[in-house]
């Protein structure tokens, strides 16, 4: 069971908010785009509340999932709207020399959204860079390294991507600690959400590393 004192909660909020900011900066640096990191939200909540924080269950998103391993363990998920994800991939692949297969093709609304393998791998790299920046910030407080796993990209309903993660975390706790930030790109207001969900025992590890004792 995850219980936190107000002091612990506010220290975690500050630490995670800094990490989320670093993640946004890394994304901006990687893409050369102006990225606004908005609505950082760090709190203890129920699984249903986590899904609400991510923007709702049935919204189809491009989810970039990375597991977190090492002295801190848990899950990280970057969720982008399909069009935004495709745009982001295009920005990263510009000048790679590969012809983007669907750059000027009209989009058939009856066909489900798909990503080509090149865009998928570009988005995996987005996940890698973004989550690693977050983990580096947190890792400064921990004595052992924290690492992300190999990324996985899925196009799915947000709830369906999240529930497997939430099921994993809910085995030993009804509540989870969720850290979320919204990334807004330029004037297009393409929004993506970054969600970090540490395991209950990792929250305790992090708190003691931050110098808070129970």
């Amino acid at each position, binding site marked *: *069971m995850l219980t936190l004192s107000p002091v612990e909660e506010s220290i975690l909020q500050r630490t995670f908010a800094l990490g989320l900011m670093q993640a946004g900066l890394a994304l901006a640096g990687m893409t050369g785009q102006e990225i606004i990191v908005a609505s950082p939200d760090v709190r203890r909540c*129920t*699984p*249903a509340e986590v*899904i609400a924080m991510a923007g*709702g*269950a*049935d919204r*189809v998103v491009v989810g970039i*999932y990375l*597991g977190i391993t090492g002295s801190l363990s848990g*899950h990280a998920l970057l969720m982008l709207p399909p069009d935004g994800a495709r745009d982001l991939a295009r920005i990263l692949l510009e000048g790679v020399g590969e012809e983007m297969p669907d750059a000027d093709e009209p989009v058939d609304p009856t066909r*489900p*959204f798909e990503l080509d393998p090149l865009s998928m791998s570009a988005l995996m790299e987005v996940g890698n860079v973004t989550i690693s920046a977050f983990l580096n910030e947190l890792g400064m407080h921990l004595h052992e390294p924290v690492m992300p*796993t*190999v990324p*996985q990209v*899925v*196009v*799915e*309903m*947000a*709830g*369906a*991507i*999240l*529930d*497997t*993660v*939430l*099921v*994993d975390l*809910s*085995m*030993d*706790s*009804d*509540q989870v600690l969720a850290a979320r930030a919204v990334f807004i790109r330029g004037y297009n207001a393409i929004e993506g959400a970054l969600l970090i969900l540490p395991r209950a025992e990792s929250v305790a590890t992090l708190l003691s590393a931050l110098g808070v004792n129970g």
Partner: protein
Amino acid sequence: MIGTSQAEVGAPGLTQLLVAGIGEMVLSRDPRSILVAYGLGSCVALSAWDPISGAGALAHFMLPGGPVAGSVGGPPVKTIEGGLGIFLDAFVRQGGQLRRAQFKAAGGAAMLALLSGGLEIGRRNGEALISGLESRGLRLLARDLGGGAGRTVQLEVGTGRLLVKSVSTVATL
């Protein structure tokens, strides 16, 4: 009960959407109600519908079983082991009769290949649901379990139809 909503009589003719969030359930006897569970991955949804009384119920289960830590204030139907009985009792209180009720289930997909155990939990959820019903002498009339795609399910309380949608398909159970 937290996370449980029941339909109230609203304006005539208006469809009423009742949403079962993760680990929650919804019930109604109003034929205009539609009971929904959005974005099921490894979770499973179980619907119960009584064609005579018109009572309908939908649960959004997360886990097959296991220790439930401090369930006060937690999701009421988080596990199938602990929540199936709660769900069936609520359905009966809503006017449903278990012997004549139609049970349908959807969900239990394998979503994230990298998450160890993540592939297992969907399958185990499906199995736990079937065996939980069997141990009470009940069985599923229709099912859409497993696979690798997320699902949204909708139970039409007026007709008992269960609509199952994924990103690329729509089916009626």
